[in-house]
């Protein structure tokens, strides 16, 4: 049996190691690290690839969410070592969803835990004992910027509207004579599922929940606050599963881009259902 003596513990706390949990806590952080890293690597590759983002064969109209809206010009950047380079338009688009997810309250929890180990899991000791008093949370740069999450939300709403338009387009097929008609391919379904999940994620956002009604203290005071209470209730209902929407919408947007890349590069064929 272990015996313990007081040594470095502050304020007369129990002279025990901070944690004695069995090793069951690391699964979630590990999974988060693996999936987020894979997603990061894939997205970076696709953003720079600047190819296979539009599929128009057989009259289809699939535009990858990573490259939407189609920017008319490929802006160039003056890079320190490489000189003037054309940069894939995806870079300019992806900063917005990236900022949205990076500052999202759920993703913050996920990466503070799994990447920063602040803390790695509940009641599991943080490893860097020497840095303990230096912790500043979200009070100092850069994490103080998390307070501007609402602006990333505004941008995300614009993106969601654009992606809804792309989804409608994915159901409109171009005939050989140039006419447009309704049709469904497997890709159209992929687009539809993706935009529904992205909308659920976006409109279950905590900043939105605050904006739409959470900021009021008195709901019964006027008809405006009364109706905002109704919307706030619905957003709260969605918000309850915000973490779930965060994960599934990330996987769906990933899959949608992969699907477009795969059909555009000829890896496999899109099947027309209707």
């Amino acid at each position, binding site marked *: 049996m272990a015996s313990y003596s007081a040594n470095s513990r502050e304020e007369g706390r129990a002279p025990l190691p901070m944690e004695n949990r069995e090793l069951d806590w690391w699964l979630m952080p590990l999974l988060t690290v693996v999936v987020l890293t894979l997603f990061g690597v894939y997205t970076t590759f696709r953003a720079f690839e600047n190819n296979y983002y539009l599929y128009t064969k057989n009259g289809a109209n699939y535009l990858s969410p990573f490259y939407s809206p189609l920017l008319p010009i490929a802006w160039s950047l003056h890079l320190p070592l490489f000189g003037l380079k054309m940069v894939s338009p995806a870079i300019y688009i992806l900063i917005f969803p990236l900022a949205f997810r990076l500052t999202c*309250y759920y993703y913050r929890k996920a990466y503070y835990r799994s990447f920063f180990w602040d*803390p790695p899991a509940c009641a599991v000791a943080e490893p860097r004992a020497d840095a303990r008093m230096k912790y500043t949370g979200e009070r100092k740069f850069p994490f103080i910027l998390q307070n501007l999450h609402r602006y990333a939300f505004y941008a995300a709403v614009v993106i969601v509207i654009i992606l809804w338009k792309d989804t409608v387009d994915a159901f409109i097929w171009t005939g050989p004579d140039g006419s447009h008609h309704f049709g469904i391919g497997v890709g159209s379904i992929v687009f539809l599922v993706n935009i529904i999940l992205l909308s659920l994620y976006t409109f279950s956002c905590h900043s939105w929940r605050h904006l739409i009604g959470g900021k009021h203290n008195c709901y019964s005071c006027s008809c405006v606050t009364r109706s905002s209470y109704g919307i706030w209730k619905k957003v709260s209902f969605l918000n309850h599963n915000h973490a779930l929407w965060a994960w599934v919408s990330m996987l769906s947007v990933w899959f949608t881009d992969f699907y477009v890349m795969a059909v555009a590069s000829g890896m496999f064929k899109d099947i027309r259902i209707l």
Partner: protein
Amino acid sequence: MRDKVTIRLFRGNANGGTETDYEVTTFPGMVVLDAIHQIQGTQDSTVACRWNCKAAKCGSCSAEINGRPRLMCKSHVEDFADSNGLIRVHPLKTFPLIKDLVTDVSINYRTAEKIPPLTVSEDIPRPFKMQQIDVERIQEFRKCIECFLCQDVCHVLRDHNRKDGYFGPRFMIKIAALSMHPLDTGNRLRQLKEEGGIGYCNITKCCEEVCPEHIHLTDNGIIPLKERVADYYYDPLKILIRKIVGPKKK
């Protein structure tokens, strides 16, 4: 269910101690607090533990069972015994230890004193009449039984020991209940940002995970408060509008 389990209990004080094994006889529905009582009654009456209701309502019997902050009276022996029938019971590790399972949680009472009570204008007729839709949100926070498990698990207080900088989750929801109160006229935002240290919370949600009352401390309390603080102190557009139009009356 096994007939006997072993409770590996921390015995000692802040100067040192040992984990001591006690074998206890189980019965259906037995909780860890029952096991501690059995040890006190039949093996060692000097074991110190705090309890009161045995109904998960007084918040006294907080401890760390197999490393998890829990109420002892709400933790079934069956659920916690490992394959060898062993359960480890430790005191809360964030607060000063008095003896065995009893810790000094008085810092929480000192923090509570720093929060100004509900402030209602004299013009409002008493007693207050309030609508259900206005109190619904804050009723959740009033379920708190002050077990301080959330304070114990919060890494800001536990690992970083920033009790000087952060009030802790229990007091964030106390302030939330006041801030969201339709009649409260107190300005809570400055205290939240400065003395209360809401910025220390990185919304990693351990408080929410351990709360025996299932209060959504972060989702319904701390995050909405962070948004309110952002409204006032960080949102450049709102700051600009306030500069032009003047401050909004509460």
